[in-house]
């Protein structure tokens, strides 16, 4: 099976620069301070935010808020059943939780919430490539829904290069066949709080890959922005 046909079509019929279909909903849970559900193609992620609330003594910092992130992948979400806790699945969850915390710490205005804690929980319901990017986007939406002060949106997307053709927003088939770069962008400043890469590609392609990822992240930003405005205007017209 070819990941990129001669006519320039990918396995799911997209062109190289096209993103997958995005569906998002904010405020899906009543109990959480903020929540969001995001679908990018077949990757479905749920994010909830609790906070800012009083920090536990161990996590309390006197001048800034501490952000606690947990990443969980449902056992039914991947190809093989049974990412049970303990072993490889748990370690990857820990790694991604720590990575998410790093990314969000650079964008949340933590100085405004001293001695408090913001919990961000991300649950992957279905994983079909670009999981981590979708988690970052969902977490951003949930933070906006919770009303936490942010420096900017964090928009993430995955990108790759296959036979000199850059691709964006990979699904799981493409992830296993090609190197994948996940990048997040703050659209206003154009800076990257997140950069992750797997497999290998030549360094000369890095510049092009970063450009392509940046464009894709800006596209994601447009979509998320529209969704947030729609949600806010719907909420305000209810009241």
């Amino acid at each position: 099976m070819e990941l990129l046909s001669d006519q320039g079509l990918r396995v799911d019929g997209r062109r190289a620069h096209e993103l997958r279909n995005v569906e998002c909903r904010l405020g899906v849970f009543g109990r959480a301070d903020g929540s969001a559900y995001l679908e990018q193609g077949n990757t479905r992620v749920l994010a909830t935010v609790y906070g800012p609330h009083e920090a536990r003594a161990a996590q309390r910092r006197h001048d800034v808020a501490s952000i606690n992130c947990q990443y969980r992948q449902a056992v039914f979400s991947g190809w093989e059943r049974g990412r049970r806790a303990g072993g490889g699945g748990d370690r990857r969850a820990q790694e991604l939780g720590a990575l998410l915390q790093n990314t969000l710490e650079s964008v949340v205005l933590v100085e405004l919430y001293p001695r408090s804690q913001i919990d961000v929980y991300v649950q992957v319901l279905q994983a079909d490539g670009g999981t981590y990017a979708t988690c970052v986007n969902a977490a951003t939406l949930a933070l906006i829904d919770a009303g936490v002060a942010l420096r900017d949106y964090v928009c993430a997307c995955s990108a790759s290069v296959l036979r000199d053709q850059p691709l964006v927003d990979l699904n799981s088939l493409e992830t296993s066949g090609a190197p994948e770069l996940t990048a997040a962008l703050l659209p206003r400043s154009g800076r990257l709080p997140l950069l992750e890469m797997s497999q290998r590609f030549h360094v000369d392609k890095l510049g092009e890959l970063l450009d392509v990822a940046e464009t894709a992240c800006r596209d994601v930003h447009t979509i998320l922005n529209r969704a947030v405005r729609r949600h806010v205007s719907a909420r305000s017209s209810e009241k």
Partner: protein
Amino acid sequence: MLLARERALATVRAELGTPRPSRPNEGTLQVAVDVTPTAAPGADRSNDLTVGLERLLERCLRESRCVDQESLCVVADEKVWQLRLHVELLDLGGNACDAAALAALAALCHFRRPHVSVTGGEVRLCPADEAEPVPLAVLHKPVLVTFAFFGDGQHFVADPTEIEERASEGLLTVGMNSYREICTLHLTGKLLLSKQQVLECTELAAARARSLTSQLRRALTADEAERTALHPFPGLARVELERMATAAASVRLSGAVRGPALTAEQISEMEKEVDEKLSVFRHKDMAAAAEIGQGGASQWGPPSEDEEGDQDEMWPRTAETPAKTAPTASDSDSEGEQTVLHPEDLEPHAEPGTGKGLRCPMPVR
């Protein structure tokens, strides 16, 4: 592996086992990282470091296809080689990633697994004296280079020490091989980078990767020559690793990251010096230093009784001490207590072969 003050020890073990169901004709490579309590106070309780490092090494070595895993298959669907790579951080001097990655890579390149013969449905492990142990098929040699950023990303330094790491806003780790291919990128901390900075760092990382891999290749060739001269020793021999490590550390100390690379003569001179010191401690009659598959007696002897209450002696002195001669004698610890090595400390107290080595104090933080 000694990178200035940072020490890491890597071991590779291989077992025959069943393959993963999703990949029936590939072997597996598992990475485990341990931070020993001697590395830094309270370090063994730090889980983030070990998990982060494990995942980084997995991405750098396994997902970038550094080792050809299909060559590890013995009988498809039934028996494959399962490699376990274990890295122990002995001394946290900053930049644990780079040291751990280089140690892991050296261990993988150095490792020899037993030859297997498959007759009909039967798999037979050939002992070392029957068939020469086989090295792993290493397709490319990725190394990690870390940069620490300061001042809102304005300034960065390569290969940060512990203080630089702690004071930095974030770290960018770039994994590259000598073919200028990026194997991994990893950003930690509250750092916001621009595209230009990333490209600049990757260029520097490419130069550093090239020098490190050539260093490694030289040490491996020298070890190979020695190995064929003596008996075939399967598995890991720490003496060789330490030698490579010391040479690598010397290169680092001479500022090879941003400055001009050392000429081949200078490097070989340094290696000769280290060789002379090491030759005192080499045990030619030592039995195999690692187990493969069936297990065997541990070569890590108990602490010697005639030490005067030296609690730091937890591992064989023979391999540990030579590595201290080159770098730490010239390094000065800004944090206070530092035991300075004097030449008289390095005289061997016991003859080789008895398992007792020389007494040499560990630098105390």
